[in-house]
């Protein structure tokens, strides 16, 4: 069996938390303002922190406590802080540039979610309880929605956020499906995030210097 066996109230809490996590990714899909986007990401990471903490308390796993507080520190505080500061420093235009309009992108996110449910159901339904199916399909749909965010938005900040949503999805999947993962793996993922954000911010600053904007539409000029 995948996942832990837990009392009923933990299942109810876990259900509610994963549903809220999915909803916050839809909030990100439907927002027009970058600062709102970043705050929604912070909120999503905070929910993941609570979920990890609840699972850690219930299973009395010290590693999960550790991972939970690292999540709180890195994903909920540091990364949104860096991004918000970046916006202020470069006075980036607040409005998100969209290729696909908001209603269509919400509906596409919905289709991706349904697809994720379908995939997870086919993959792990024979040997896992229903709660794991629900939570891991939501994690997989976070990954899909993150990809969709990268595809459908122009600016580099939103690309970074899409990548971070993918990371969140992977982290959620690992916490829910295999909570006994060695702590070193989780640490690697968290450092990965910090390095990714730092590297991408430096890259986008260079892009700002060269092209004068954060929009990636300019990049097709580089084609030789």
């Amino acid at each position, binding site marked *: 069996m995948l996942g832990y066996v837990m009392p009923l109230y933990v299942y109810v809490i876990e259900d509610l938390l994963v549903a809220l996590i*999915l909803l916050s990714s839809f909030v990100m899909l439907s927002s027009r303002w970058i600062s709102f986007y970043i705050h929604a990401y912070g909120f999503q990471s905070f929910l993941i922190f609570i979920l990890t903490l609840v699972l850690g308390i219930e299973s009395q796993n010290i590693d999960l406590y550790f991972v939970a507080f690292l999540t709180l520190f890195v994903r909920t505080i540091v990364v949104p802080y860096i991004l918000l500061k970046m916006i202020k420093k470069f006075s980036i235009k607040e409005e998100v540039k969209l290729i696909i309009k*908001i209603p269509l992108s919400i509906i596409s996110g919905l289709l991706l979610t349904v697809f994720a449910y379908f995939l997870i159901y086919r993959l792990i339904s024979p040997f896992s309880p229903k709660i794991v199916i629900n939570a891991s399909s939501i994690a997989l749909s976070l990954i899909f929605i993150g990809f969709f965010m990268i595809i459908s938005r122009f600016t580099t900040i939103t690309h970074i956020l899409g990548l971070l949503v993918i990371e969140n999805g992977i982290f959620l999947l690992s916490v829910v499906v295999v909570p006994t993962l060695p702590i070193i793996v989780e640490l690697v993922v968290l450092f990965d995030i910090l390095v990714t954000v730092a590297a991408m911010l430096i890259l986008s600053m260079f892009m700002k210097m060269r092209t004068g904007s954060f929009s990636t539409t300019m990049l097709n000029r580089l084609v030789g």
Partner: protein
Amino acid sequence: MNIFLNSTVFQIFQVITVLLCSPFIAGFISKIEEIIEGKTGPSVFQSYYDLYKLFHKEILIPKDASFIFQSAPFVSFISMVLITLLIPVLTIYPLPLGFMGDMLGGAFLFSLSSFFINIASLDAGTSYGGLGSSRSTLLAILSEPTLILVFVGVALIAKSTLPYVMLHTITASLPLYFSPPHFLIIAAFFLLFLADTDRRPINASTHVEMSMIEEARILEYSGPYLALLKWSGYMKQFLLLVIFLNVLVFPWGLSVNHSPAGLFIAIVSLIVKMLIVGVIAAVIDTAISRLRFFRYQEYFAAAFVLSVLAIMTFQYKGF
């Protein structure tokens, strides 16, 4: 001494409660809105005064209007009274006429009333009538998928489309009450409630022709006809609140037996619950700005997402 009333008495009281309390709730919400905006506002009973005044005025009918114009207020009013019989307003057990129709029947009656007002506003032949009816038809088209999916979600949870069964299902199981499908359905229905009762972010029911939807449809009516239409508008809001509160959000406090005390407690608790939701609705109505007409789809897409996610999360819930 135990007095036990007939269930017919309850059925009658159900209709009387809706008829008499609905203008009060409407007046209360508008009073709260005015207070939030920093004004004194009209009395809570202003809706009653309006209805009284309108019933004592003469009826003016446009020259080109046909029988549809005259029948629309009655159809609207009577369909609201019929919906009252179908839903659990006061009692937790089904009343004799509660089995006339299920939630789909109620939705059919709501759209019947809306349809008659639409064709009546077209019937008068003014340009404002056409404008109002086309806008409200667009809104109905956008909100219909969500409404259907909310019903599907309720039918999945309760294994029935009768509102009484849904009420019993969620009160019987506490994990189900706190499960995401239930909350998501509540959220989707609340968005529909805001849209259907003419609140922001969809539209303010003002008389400015740029933004009017509900007012444009009934612009040609006057006197008792207008009073009936206004009253059925108040009742529509009241009934949607009853479905929202007594079927979905908080199905406690209803009468469990035939006693007069139960009847009294049911009426009082219903009013108290409604005042709380009314305050929330008034805060939302004053805090949010109006959406542009071409951005309504974003709002309804959000409601649609909520209802689909309710169905998806119900399939694999953890208990």
